[in-house]
């Protein structure tokens, strides 16, 4: 057990715990916030693993952009504030989900642990990997990199087009969700 092992264990524990909380919490917004914690600590794990660039990008993109997007989405879809039992699937589905999750973990662990058993990374020499990563990105990986920029553009336009999609559901909503648009709820909201 080296120092790094101990640090990684601590950071990893935070990551795993926050991930678990983010999928089990009964409060919708808390789930997003626990995701924030999880991703942030994962960035710390990258740092411990010596990939500071990846860790920073993780912070920037995931924590800074994606989680914010998720929070926005929760707001726009009128996510309830406070604990809510209705955000989870029925118990039997959750049970199957837990079994499947455990199975996935076991499967991956049974694959990965033998692969990485005894493998170590020597990170104690004070060198940075960033120039190498930069050279690789703009050298070996430049075409995939450019393709990725195109993909981003396409996804941007796609998201725009999809959100412009006007899908009508005339009269159906009121009929299918009676009481949701009741005048009483409205006046309460206004007050």
């Amino acid at each position, binding site marked *: 057990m080296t120092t790094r092992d101990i640090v990684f264990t601590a950071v990893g524990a935070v*990551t795993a715990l926050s991930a678990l909380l983010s999928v089990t919490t009964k409060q919708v917004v808390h789930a997003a916030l626990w995701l924030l914690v999880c991703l942030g600590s994962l960035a710390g794990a990258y740092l411990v693993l010596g990939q500071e660039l990846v860790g920073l990008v993780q912070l920037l993109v995931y924590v800074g952009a994606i989680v914010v997007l998720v929070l926005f989405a929760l707001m726009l879809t009128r996510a309830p504030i406070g604990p809510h039992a209705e955000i989870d699937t029925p118990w039997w589905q959750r049970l199957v989900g837990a079994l*499947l999750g455990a199975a996935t973990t076991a499967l991956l662990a049974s694959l990965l642990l033998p692969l990485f058993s005894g493998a170590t*990374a020597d*990170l104690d020499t004070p060198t940075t990997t960033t120039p190498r990563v930069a050279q690789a990105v703009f050298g070996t990986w430049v075409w*995939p990199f450019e393709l990725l920029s195109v993909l981003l553009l396409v996804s941007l336009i796609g998201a725009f087009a999809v*959100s412009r999609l006007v899908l009508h559901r*005339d009269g159906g909503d009121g009929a299918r969700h009676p009481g949701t648009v009741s005048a009483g709820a409205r006046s309460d909201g206004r007050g």
Partner: protein
Amino acid sequence: MIHLSLPAALSALLAGIGVYGVLARRNAVLVLIGVELILNAANLLLVTAGSRPGAPLSAGPVLTLFVITIAAAEITVALAIILVMFRRTGHIDLTAVPDLTDDEPDEPDDPDDPDDAGDPGDAEDPRAADRDGHPRDATREPAAAGEALA
């Protein structure tokens, strides 16, 4: 010096938690959180593999960066779809039986739709029901208010 079986184990754990998150949630955004966790498990595995001595071409970190980018693109589109679903059905409940009936082709657009449909704020469709009784901005939707009061 670090033992790489630790991050590998964390990766497996994250993937399992992500799978559980996908299956245990009925809110589509929360399902998306589970998907993010699985993606991060993959990222962590890539970084771990890239940290092995003698890993070629810096593939680990570079592919991690790519995956992060792709994840950003993916979540943008996924959230757009979720918003459209919310506008159409009034909820984002994945346990509800979907209604696949066709829309009336000659239905006129909402009068205020073309201007600000791209704006995320437009998600407040007049007919999108407030299923949890949250306040809605009646002043911005006079037509809807009149319709509901009528």
